[in-house]
Structures are given as structure tokens and as C-alpha cells.
């Protein structure tokens, strides 16, 4: 599956990468905290930091809950931040349903922990300016969320 946003590759950039293992729940919090810290150090606005941290947490959590394994990349270029997850797993059979708040295919066990509430993708959508999802059933999913950064005065 191709990277849907090629323009990010051609500019000076800052990149964070994480490996996501199966049922490794703690990696979501760790990755999101690390990204948050980096963005704060780079001087992004608090609202932008918040939104990107939420996107990272939810996107990684989706890989942990629904896929076998995957990777997270956060690419920071001057005018935007791209959050990219790519996983190997079951894929999303019905993307339209998956985007609906409250719809979830998570297991009972995962739900008991307070995950799998069917809010992950809607949260990501709400926090990003652009969201691209490419999924193939039985193969995996690529998710790309973009947050455009406001110019600093």
C-alpha cells in the first residue's frame, strides 16, 4: 500500500517512529507521550499538541486492538504534522460503519478495560484536518491523519 501523502517526503522533516506489537497496550500511551513532548519542545500550540497526541493514541490503540502488529510514524514538517499507522491484520470490512461513533468490533475483554468504545476513528477525524484510510480485508490498514499547523506570529 502506498503512502497517500507524498509531499511530506520532499521537505526538511522531523520523524518519530515506533513499532507496535500485538496486545501491547502500553505502547499507545508511551508513543503519544513521546510525541506530545517532542511537539511541545518544537513550540507547537497547545491545541495542536493536544489534537496530535489524541490522534496518535487512538491510531496506535486501533492497531493494538484490531491488528496483529504495525508501525507508527509521525512526520513533522514546517506547516503540518502527519500521523501514519500501517498495520498487518484483519483490515476494516466496513469503513463507513467504523467511522460511526459507538460502532466497534472490539472483544468483550478489551471493552471491559474501557477501550473499544467505538470512539477511536471519530476522535481521530475530529482532531485532524485530513484523514485518509486505506484498508484491505485480511491484509491490513494504512491510516494517515494530517494536522495543518497555524503559522506562528
Amino acid at each position, binding site marked *: 500500500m502506498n503512502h497517500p501523502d507524498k509531499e511530506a517526503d520532499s521537505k526538511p522533516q522531523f520523524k518519530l517512529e515506533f513499532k507496535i506489537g500485538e496486545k501491547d497496550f502500553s505502547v499507545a500511551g508511551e508513543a503519544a507521550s513521546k510525541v506530545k513532548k517532542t511537539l511541545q519542545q518544537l513550540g507547537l500550540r497547545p491545541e495542536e499538541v493536544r489534537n496530535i497526541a489524541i490522534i496518535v493514541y487512538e491510531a496506535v490503540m486501533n492497531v493494538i486492538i484490531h491488528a496483529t502488529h504495525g508501525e507508527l510514524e509521525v512526520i513533522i514538517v514546517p506547516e503540518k504534522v502527519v500521523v501514519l499507522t500501517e498495520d498487518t491484520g484483519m483490515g476494516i470490512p466496513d469503513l463507513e460503519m467504523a467511522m460511526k461513533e459507538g460502532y466497534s468490533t472490539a472483544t468483550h475483554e478489551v471493552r471491559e478495560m474501557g477501550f473499544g*468504545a467505538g470512539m477511536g476513528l471519530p476522535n481521530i477525524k475530529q482532531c485532524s484536518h485530513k484523514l485518509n484510510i486505506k484498508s484491505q480485508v485480511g491484509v491490513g490498514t494504512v491510516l494517515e491523519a494530517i494536522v495543518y499547523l497555524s503559522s506562528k506570529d
Partner: protein
Amino acid sequence: MTLGELVNLLGFETLTGEVNLDKEIKSGYVSDLLSDVIANIEEGSVWITIQRHVNVLGVAKLRDILAIIIPRKLELEQEVIERAKSENIAILRDYRPAFEISGLIYNALKRG
């Protein structure tokens, strides 16, 4: 109102000692769904939840939550408490159910 003042007022158990007791409480939130908390809690809040696994700390850290408040005197693993201390997140506990605790905190914060 600081977290310490709230603890004194309502008699909560402090499982993490002095952590964050000097910090000012901005607001509060009650939910057991982690995605709901991540999306809607304000920074500097107290969070009332029955979720007690280690991943709640990731959520708390991510959104700069001051304290997690566990209702109905539910049990916690020592590992979670130790981890919370090292991440600077307070864990408080009370015998009352979440509904009562949130009502008491809401009134306390409103009075200031």
C-alpha cells in the same frame, strides 16, 4: 482549590502520598471509557473512574490529569500505584460511589 484541600475536605485516601497535593484543580470528569476521557477531559482535572489497570496512567499522563479517584473502595494493584507515583499522577480512593463523589467535588469546586 488544591488537591490537598479537596482531600482534607472530603476525606479521600491518598494512595500515592504527597503527589500533586499542592496543585490547583481546574475541573473534573467522570467516565470509564478511555476514548471519552482522552477527547473530553480538561487538563489539570481530577478523573473519577473504576478503571484501575496500568493503561489509565497513559491516558492521565497524556492529558495532564492531576488525580485519578477510585470509588467504592475498589482494590488496586500495588504496581499501578508505584507507576503512578513515578509518573506524577495522584491516585485517591473513597468509599462512596462515583455519583456521590462527583457531586461532592462539583460543589466544592463551585464554592472555590
